[in-house]
Every structure is written in C-alpha cells, then in structure tokens.
C-alpha cells in the first residue's frame, strides 16, 4: 500500500460542509427547570477532514453529534449543511451507530438497501448499489445473512455499508468501534482509513465521537476536547502526522500525552487551566467510581513500576482500562485528595500513600475522613440523618435534591455512587428493599 499523506488530499479552504453556530441545548426537567447540557458550541467540518470529539461522559458530545445529524433540535444557535439550514436529518449526511442499529428482521442486503428504498430508488438500481457497497466493505457472501448470524465486527461492517451506500458527503460516527473487541476494531478502522485515503468512497468529511484517545489520534486531522457541565469545546488539537500513523512513534505518543493532559485538567474560573480542583458543591456530578476499583488503582499506583507516580497513558495500558473507565477513577482520587494530576501524569498525595499503607480497618477510617471532608453531599446526608429523630430518611428525598442540579438519570447515578461510598465508609447504612438510608447497626 502506498503511503498517503494528508497532503495528497486537497484541503481547500472553502465553505465548510457542516457548520454549527453557537449551538446550545437545554433539557427541560419534570419541574420545568432547564438543564444546560451544551453551551455555545461553534464548529465547522471542512472538506477532506476527519474530526474526532473526545470528552468525559456527560460532556454532551453525543448530543452534539445528534444535533449535527438533525436528530435533535438545538435550543439555541443553528446548524448549516452546505449553506442550508439543518432542521431534520438531511440527505448527504449518514450516521453509524455504537450499537450498530441494524434491523434484525432484514437481511444484510435488506439493511443496506433500506436507505435507498426510502429515497424511492428502483429495485434494480438499489440491488446493484447495495451489492457494490457490501463488496466494498468486505461483506461479500453474507448478503442473505441476518444480523444475528454475524459477529459484532461484521455487524458494524453492515452499519458502514448501510451508511456508505447512500453516497454521503459526511459520515457521522457515534463511537462506532467501542462495542467491538480490540483486534476487530483495529481491522475495521484500518479498512475505513484505506477507503478514505484512497478516495474509494465519495465521503468528503468524517466526524467521529470517541472515548478512545489512541483511536482519535490515529484517525483524526483535528481533535476537539469537550468539557462538561455544560458541554463545550475546551480545546482543539490539530494532528498533522502522516498516514498511516505509527502508534509507537514519538510524535504520536506526544499527542496522546497532550490529550490526556487536556482531558484531566479542569479549566480554572479565570479561564486559566489550573490543575487544582475547586471545592465542589452539593450537586456535583460525582464520578462513577466504586470503592473497590479506587482501592485497586491506589494499590497498583503504589506498587512498581509506578511507585506512586504514573504517566496516564501508561497506567491505562498497564491496568487494561479504557479511558472512560480510567477517568472517573482518577477524578474520584483527585476529588478525595488521594492523588494529584498534572500534565498527563498522576501522583499519589500523602493521604493517598497513607491509605495505601494502612490495613483494612484503618483504610475505612481514612476513606471515611476523606469523603466527609471532600464530598458535601455525603456530609449533608449524614447531617440530615443525625438530625432526624428516627435517624432514617428515604433515598428519594436526596434524589429530589440532586434532580435540581442533574438530570434524572445522572442524579440516580450520583446517588448510587454516594451510597456506595457512604456504606463502605460506614457513614450510614442503606436498605435497598425499602430504599431507606439510616444510622442503624452502628
């Protein structure tokens, strides 16, 4: 295969293919309080570009992709495709889904033909184009198979064939490789990059949401880092390495490091990027981190080869954790004062080391002190339970408080996390049958 650099593809500075101007999205909660998930996002996808969006969960990146696709209407701002407004799904924009979204009752051919059928294209033409797309994506021989007969990788190939068969200008990819195993994902990614760089598909621009940093650095010309609460573009990193990219090259590693750094730093209030997290409020979106996992991570950080200090990409690799699994843990360690993150590196703090060295009972003690000090929600729950005569309170009471700040789903998740922490630290006990928090058995 010839080495194709990005210079081989003309990147004209023309009108953008897809253009988002000041896009914001507010979801209305049941009690009609607006909850902002996206704020003031400006973005343009130009011809010849692959753009990747990275961000923590809850950064609204998936919502943003759906707004660009015309599946969700923005609350503010607008989206334009080739100069025309996007008010619903437009022809020329195709999407590939994380869960493949294949119709189980249609064969591979039926699924691929679906979009053409909806366009009213004749049966013969449809068949010809679908078979071509199926061949292109390497599925020949499976035309009459049903999706359930195929492996995950093959299913996603159908997903790509279905998208490519309509000859889209723009491909929107919603974490298309994240449901696949590592090797399958790698193969499919390379096949897509080959099709793209050899111009065998008419697609002029690709926008991909991902949570895999290496994947983004490997594919994209540009990486957008989304921040959360509310979601917005925090940083933009151009990637000008030639294709195909070597994951072990110094340039590649450097960009990966840079992305890690950007993803783990919280922009300070004055716009400066400070590494020190500010004190959090009652309705803070606590990271999804169970105590067992936190303890495991602290233990690995203490042991060689890290000895209390680690490069995040290295840590993710060593612990075999995807970034969306690693980040919540790191955020929690920072929050509890057990670790300190800067420049894509993580260091255990004194408290963290003390926790690592302690025995099981003292660990509980240290953990309890940390959460009472750093998590206002936990302190609040304990205070309420102390004040109540029966020392009991339904979980729903705190859920309602959280729902003032978070979506219903997020509120439940945060409460689950806090209950996990509180139970472990023996700050309260929880009866999951009655969904009641109490100070019983102490």
């Amino acid at each position, binding site marked *: 295969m010839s080495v194709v650099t990005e210079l081989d593809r003309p990147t004209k500075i023309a009108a953008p293919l897809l253009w988002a101007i000041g896009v914001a999205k507010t979801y209305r909660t049941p009690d*009609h309080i607006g909850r902002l998930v996206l704020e003031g996002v400006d973005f343009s996808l130009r011809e010849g570009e692959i753009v990747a969006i990275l961000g923590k969960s809850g950064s609204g990146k998936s919502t943003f992709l*759906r707004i660009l*696709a015309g*599946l969700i209407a923005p609350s503010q701002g607008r989206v334009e495709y080739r100069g025309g407004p996007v008010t*619903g*799904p437009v*022809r020329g*924009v*195709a*999407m590939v*889904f*994380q*869960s*493949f*979204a*294949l*119709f*189980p*009752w*249609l064969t591979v051919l039926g699924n691929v033909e*679906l*979009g053409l059928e*909806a*366009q*009213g294209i004749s049966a013969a033409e449809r068949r010809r184009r679908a078979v071509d797309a199926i061949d292109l994506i390497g599925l020949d021989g499976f035309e009459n198979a*049903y*999706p*359930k007969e195929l492996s995950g990788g093959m299913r996603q190939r159908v997903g790509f064939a*279905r998208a490519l068969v*309509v000859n889209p200008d723009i491909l929107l990819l919603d974490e298309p490789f994240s449901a696949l195993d590592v090797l399958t994902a790698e193969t499919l990614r390379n096949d897509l990059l080959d099709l793209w760089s050899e111009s065998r598909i008419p697609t002029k621009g690709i926008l991909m949401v991902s949570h895999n940093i290496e994947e983004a650095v490997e594919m994209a010309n540009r990486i957008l880092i989304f921040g959360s609460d509310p979601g917005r573009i925090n940083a933009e990193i151009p990637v000008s390495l030639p294709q195909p990219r070597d994951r072990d090259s110094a340039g590649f590693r450097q960009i990966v490091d840079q992305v890690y750094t950007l993803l783990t730093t919280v922009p300070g209030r004055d716009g400066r990027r400070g590494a020190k997290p500010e004190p959090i409020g009652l309705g803070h979106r606590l990271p999804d981190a169970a105590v067992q996992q936190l303890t495991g991570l602290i233990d690995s950080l203490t042991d060689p080869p890290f000895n209390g200090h680690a490069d995040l990409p290295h840590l993710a690799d060593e612990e075999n954790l995807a970034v969306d699994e690693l980040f919540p843990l790191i955020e929690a360690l920072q929050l509890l004062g057990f670790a300190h993150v800067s420049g894509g590196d993580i260091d255990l703090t004194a408290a963290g080391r003390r926790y690592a060295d302690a025995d099981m009972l003292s660990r509980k003690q240290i953990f309890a002190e940390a959460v009472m000090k750093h998590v206002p929600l936990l302190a609040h729950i304990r205070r309420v339970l102390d004040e109540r005569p029966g020392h009991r309170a339904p979980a729903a009471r705190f859920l309602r408080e959280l729902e003032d700040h978070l979506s219903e789903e997020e509120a439940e998740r945060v409460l689950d996390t806090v209950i996990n922490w509180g139970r472990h630290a023996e700050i309260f006990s929880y009866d999951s*049958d009655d969904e009641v928090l109490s100070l019983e058995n102490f």
Partner: protein
Amino acid sequence: MEQRWGLPLIAWPSRLRPNAWDLVALPLVLGLLALVAWGGWAMGARYHIGEVLPISLDPWRLPEYSLRTVLRMAAALVASLVFSLVYAALAAKSRQAEKILIPVLDVLQSVPILGFLSITVTGFIALFPGRLLGVECAAIFAIFTSQAWNMTFSLYQSLRTVPVELIEAARMYHLSAWGRFWRLEVPHAVPALVWNMMMSVSGGWFFVVASEAITVSGQSILLPGIGSYIATAIEQRDLGAIGYAVGVMLVVILLYDQLLFRPLLAWSRKFRGDPGPDEDSVRPWFLIVLQRARLFDLVQIGVLALNRATDRGIALLSRSWPEQDRARPLPPAFERLFDAALLVLAAAAVAWGIVFIRASVAPAEIGWVVLLGLITAIRVLILIALASLIWVPIGVWIGLRPRFADRAQPVVQFLAAFPANLFFPAAVVLILHFGLNPEIWLSPLMILGTQWYILFNVIGGTTALPAELKLAASNLGVRRWLWWRRLILPAIFPAYVTGAVTASGGSWNASIVSEVVQWGDTTLRATGIGAYIAQYTAEGDPARITLGIGVLCVYVLALNRLLWRRLYELAAERLRLD
C-alpha cells in the same frame, strides 16, 4: 400487479414455477377459500328476530357447525388485529391520545367479556335488519373483546420500547412515518404480538362457546356452531352429544395450532434481535409446505408489491408533511386544561352511571352486590392458592426434566386453549349424583380452564433456572424445604406471578358462566357476582347488568393494583435472574 404477472406462464421467473409442494399447498388453499366463501354466505342469510334456528344434535352436522365457529373466531382475530394496530399506534404516537386510551384499555380489560355481549347485541341487530349478520356480528364482537385488549397492550408496549438507535437510524435514512411503522415498529412488535395472539385465541375458544347462544329481549337465539350444539345438548341432557362436541373441539384446536400458530411462532422468531433459546427447534411442517410451495412465493410477491405501492403512495402524500416525532409537549397550561377536561368527563360518566343505576336499584341492593363481589373475590383467591399448591410442585418436577418439559409445553398450551365450559355438564351431573353443595363444588369450574397458565409458567420458569445455581445449591447441601425456599420458589416467582395474574383474570371472567350452570331443566347456582350478572343478563335488566359489571370491574382493578402489580414489581426488582 396485473401488468407484471399477467404474462404467459413460461416467462415467469423460475422461482415462481410450480413445484411438487404446490400439489399439497394448492388444494389446501383452494379448500380454505371455498370454506370461507361458504361460511360468509351462510352468515349473511336472512333472519328475523323470533325465528328459531334449528340446531340438530346429529354428530354429522358437527363439522359444519365447527366451521361456522372457526370462521367467527378468525373474523374476531382479524378484527382484533386491525383494532390493535390502530389503537396502539394512536396511543404510542400521541401523548394526548395516550392519556385517554391507556386507562380506558385498562378498564376494558377488566370488564367481563360476556358483559359486552348483553350490552351490544341489540345495536348490532339494528345495524343489519332482517339478516343473521347482526347476530353474527354480536357474537364476533364478544369474541373480539376477549382477544383485542391484551393484543393491543402488547403492541403498545412494543411500540414504546423500540430501541432509540433504531429509531434514529430510521430517521437518518429518511424512512417516512408510514415506512417506519411497517419496517421498524410493527416488526419489532411481532414476536410479542404473535405470542399474545395465541393466548388470546385460547381465551377466545372459551367465549366462542358461550357467545353463540345470545339472548335478545328475552328470546334466545342459537347461532349455528359448536357452542349452540352444546347448549342444545345441555338442554336435552344428551351426554353423548357433548362427548362428540368435545372430540370435534379437540380436532379444531389442534388444526388451529398446527395450521396457524406453529407456523406463525416459527416465523416470528425472525423478528427477534437475538437468537432465543429455542432457536433450533424443529420447523413446523405446515410452514415448510408454505415456504417450499411456489404458490406462496407468488402470494408473497403480491403482498410485497402491494405494500410497496402503498408505501409509495403514502410517501408521495406525506412528502409535504414535516416529519413529526412523538408529538411535541404542549404548553403546560394547555396540558393542564386537557387533564382537567378528562377529569370532568370521567366524573360526569360516573355520575351518570350512578343516576342510571339508582333509578331502579335500591342502596341496600348495591351493598349486597358489593358483598357478592367480595364472595367471588375470595373464591378466586382461594382457587388460585389451591391451584398453585397443586401445580407449582408438578410444574417444577416437569421443568427440572428438560426432555419431559419439551413434550409437556405444547400439551399444557393445548389444555389452556381447550374451552373448559365443555366439561361443565359433567360437573353438574357429578354434583347432582353425589348431592354436593354447589356453593363449594361449582367454584373449581372457574379455574378449570385458567389453572394451566400457572402450570405453563412454572414449567417455563423452572427450565430457565441456570444450571449453575442448581449445582451451587446441591454443592452447599441445600435440600428439601430449604431448597424450595431459597432456590426454587424465588427463581420461579416472576414466571409464577405472570401465570397467576393470567389465571386470576380468566377466573373472574369465567365466574359469569360458572356460578350458574344448567343441565336440562336443573339449574345449579352459587352465590357470587358472576351469578348476579348472569341472572340479570338472562332477564335483560340494563341497570342491574351495569351495576354488576361496574362492581366486578372495580374488584378486578383493585385486585390488580393492590396485589398483582405489587407482586410484579417485587418480582421485577428483586428476583430477576439476569
């Protein structure tokens, strides 16, 4: 279709040339068409109220009678299907419609089926004056009411649970609303719908027998059919004739099962996303005939072409309409207004009902009817408990032996489908012979036909129990009572609750026919709300029928809310095995 397939035979694509399977399929299909045509003609016959349709007990008339019954059943099934599609689609697509339609459906579900018959028959007869069709329609409507509600519920639930990403894919690839309904939403609903159809038809057989003998303004009309045959046999105390009817019913249900439901079930597996456990079970023979015979390729192509034409037509029509998702939420003020209007309407309906009943019924009698309801409720609950005591151990025993369970499933399904009311006369003969107390011994009739749901679900629940749990239990030395308490009972609980709910609902419905049972001129009567409704239905007293049905509905709804739904939630939250 005409221009395309009107070509000479030789020019047909090879897949459409007849083959040997057509030799089987063609006579079957032609025979079916002829029978339907004849049945339809017979339904439209002239008829005047007061005319007596002679029902002969000659067993040779039974095939004809059963055909008439089967056609009624089929017509009701088609009507239920159409109704479900329209009603469920409306409820799933419009928030405003949903607010009315779903509670209404909930109530309709608990109205005793024979209650509909007494209320609606006069209207249907007025629709087709001088024709038998009116009475036929009333009977079909009664069967329809025994089938439509749970099919509609199943469809509505499926429509609301289409995976979000599939909907997004459909929108991204520009399927029209019509296309989305037929290509995505309905296929998604097919497996649950087919299953519920099967259950509905099982219930339908029970009521087809009961609904053929219709009473209008004090006169009873016997529509030609198995039900009327049995009614006549009961009147003439002819046990032999009842034996014939039972035999024919067996054959008819077997045919329905083999020709309709086995193929349908096998076909519906295609619509499931993930291969189910019984994926590799044997394909039903009739489905093989259908799929191999070229004749059906032709039919299929015809259907597809028709579908495509409609698709295109609708697409042309809908191109001008903006694509609408689930209706956008209206301003809160408007929504509150809508809710208030609904409440006022409901209150008005209740008030009218009370006035209507109070006009001819004294308060003391209302109290009495409430008490009657309580008696029937106690009967239902005791019977469910008794049936559980018997069938749970047996079901577990069968479920733990997979080879046995495979063979038992269709048998139990068949037993559930068999109209238990065919055996009522035998019960009466026994009660009379031994001089038993009808208050007690009539009760088991209520659950005769519905107990099978408990057995069926317990077998299913036990088979689904992971082998590892059983191994772990025996490894820990968990045995006897502890084994039941800690392993089996919690494991089968969700399945058991589903079965018990179905059995309970069916028993309430059956109370109307089983609390009063006749044999010739002997009538056995048990005290209960079913007997009350049956009595005033025979006498034609609308106020008391409304009262009885209203009270019964309240009981069924209350029992559902207070008992079954809680058990359901408990099962769903804590005892799920995944």
